[in-house]
């Protein structure tokens, strides 16, 4: 399918540490189409960032091993000459990082950093590059761009910095944009501005976006497809509406139930008990089983002994769970999760 710009198959990332091997990403596969948005959600430490860094070829520590396949625009990136991957970075695929202040170099002006991003891929005169940067900054809504270009990151507000990061990522009109929690550091009003901006730009350039976030509201707002990660694994993958309305996996349920709702009046929240698993000693069975309140419904303690496959619920929907369909519907109904017909 020519529409698919990024296709990840069986991606695994392991870190050898003094405490043991960290399975940060475990056999993750997904696809993103041009002009579409894939959201990756999951608890902190579930491997969202690492999996994206692996796609970008930015997992660089000595102790890391990356396996699997990453097809980007028809090219296989894993095992490719790092120099070739570098040439793609920033040009065809770009990334926005979580904390815009620490992600910008404190000692160079915004202009310098953006111009560098242009000139590294293209022979452009300083003047032209500057003009292009200015246009882009205007585009992401930075007022008086000309003047801002000569300022340093610390002189900008958080929202502006995030816009600069976005401008930097989009300056070479990449085909793929990975946004790693682009609004977590910002407050809601600015977050709304940024999301609006991303949406506009996506429309304009047809960029595919991988959006990492833990804010399900943002997901609901932005995503076409969603991947839920837990303990380094993809535990559920579905189009956005299906995920919210027909979630199939207890962890996803837990997530949805934990959100204090602005517009509903549930008084008591329904948190997931326990804490996320250590990625060194993953449970043998379902990674979520130790915290799952429904594991007893599955006969023979299967949840604790056998890891469920990422089973297809429909063409577009897959989840990892031993519960059968009837049980799932029953639980969702009883916990009032999603839309149960």
């Amino acid at each position, binding site marked *: 399918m020519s529409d698919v710009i990024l296709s990840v198959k069986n991606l695994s990332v392991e870190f050898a540490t003094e405490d043991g091997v960290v399975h940060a990403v475990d056999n993750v596969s997904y696809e993103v189409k041009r002009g579409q948005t894939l959201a990756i959600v999951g608890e902190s430490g579930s491997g969202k960032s690492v999996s994206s860094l692996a796609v970008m070829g930015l997992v660089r520590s000595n102790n890391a091993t990356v396996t699997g396949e990453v097809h980007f625009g028809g090219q296989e990136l894993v095992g490719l000459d790092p120099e070739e991957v570098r040439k793609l970075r920033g040009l065809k695929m770009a990334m926005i990082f979580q904390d815009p202040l620490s992600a910008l170099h404190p000692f160079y002006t915004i202009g310098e950093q953006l111009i560098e991003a242009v000139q590294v891929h293209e022979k452009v005169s300083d003047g032209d590059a500057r003009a292009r940067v200015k246009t882009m900054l205007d585009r992401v809504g930075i007022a008086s761009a000309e003047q801002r270009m000569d300022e340093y990151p610390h002189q900008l507000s958080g929202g502006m910095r995030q816009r600069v990061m976005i401008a930097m990522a989009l300056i070479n009109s990449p085909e793929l944009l990975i946004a790693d929690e682009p609004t977590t550091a910002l407050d809601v009003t600015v*977050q709304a501005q940024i999301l609006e901006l991303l949406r506009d730009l996506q429309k304009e350039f047809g960029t595919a976006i991988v959006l990492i976030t833990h804010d399900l509201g943002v997901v609901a707002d932005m995503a076409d497809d969603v991947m839920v990660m837990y303990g380094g694994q993809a535990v559920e993958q579905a189009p956005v509406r299906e995920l919210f309305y027909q979630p199939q996996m207890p962890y996803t349920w837990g997530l949805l139930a934990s959100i204090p709702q602005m517009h509903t009046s549930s008084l008591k929240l329904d948190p997931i008990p326990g804490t996320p698993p250590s990625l060194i000693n993953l449970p043998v069975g379902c990674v979520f089983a130790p915290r799952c309140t429904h594991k007893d419904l599955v006969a023979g303690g299967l949840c604790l002994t056998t890891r469920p496959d990422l089973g297809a619920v429909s063409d577009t929907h897959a989840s990892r769970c031993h519960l059968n369909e009837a049980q799932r519907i029953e639980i969702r109904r009883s916990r009032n999760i999603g839309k149960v017909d």
Partner: protein
Amino acid sequence: MSAPILRVKDLQKHFPVTSGNLFKKQVGEVRAVDGLTFDVYPGETLGLVGESGCGKSTAGRSMLRLLEPTGGSVEFDGQDLLAMGKRQLVSMRREMQMIFQDPYSSLNPRHTIGSIIGAPFDVQGVKPEGGTMKAVQSLMERVGLNPEHYNRYPNEFSGGQRQRIGIARAIALKPKLIVCDEPVSALDVSIQAQVLNLLDDIQKEFGIAYIFVAHDLSVVRHISDRVAVMYLGKIMELTTRDQLYSAPLHPYTHALLSAVPIADPDRERARERIILNGDLPSPSNPPSGCVFSTRCWKATDRCSSEIPVLREISAGHQIACHFPEDRSSATASSTVSGTDFTAN
């Protein structure tokens, strides 16, 4: 209703901006908190919301005199807190506690949990029945920590557990008031829910009053009885929770509420949004007149010249705006999504 446990009047905290090496001189000031007035009653939760950097934490600290306020008055349990001497203040701290914003930095990494939770007993010279150790362990149990972990260090705990340690420390002496400074903003949704539930339970059990600082409106809605909305060191609107969420009057409150995304794709995409223009102005150089005027779509010349005072518009509903607007009906009639309200 009983007497308020805390009365805050015109509370101000300005940070000096200094320069110079040997002889410092003040060249300006940051008006982090610029005239807050409100009461808190026993057993109730007052939510304090606003954008990051609008002075919520500073307000919380100033109320407890962890920071020396620049002006105004704070009356705690009928006593003037700001007039107290150091001694008196120290003993007063038994009654008012704080839960800190950052569960990672608010626990001394070199102390065991036991000594952290036990510190208030130590410092205040309180000898609980059955010894400090026992008291600490029962507190740990109360907040859902394994008492056997008495001798562990904070870094061995997850964020949610650490926040509970902070909570245990705050409730150790059964205070009358706890200022909760964004106790959940650093946490994951699922852990956040655990902590919110815990706070709720404790309040019910001990009748503690909370001042609950947050920037997440859904969280505040969940826990508060009344809510104050802050912007650049000032209160914009203060009213009961239901009033605020159903019939807000201040344009800023509107914008805030509309910016919170809803975790439901259909409703989220159908939602009307107010996208504000520009960023929060610098508190060291606030706009003249109404501080929100630079981003307000309804601002007029009056707004940029005349400071709106916080006034009671209806029973228990205070607002600081020249042009309050009830959009609850408007919202119902408008189905436009993604409306871009811009200032100019």
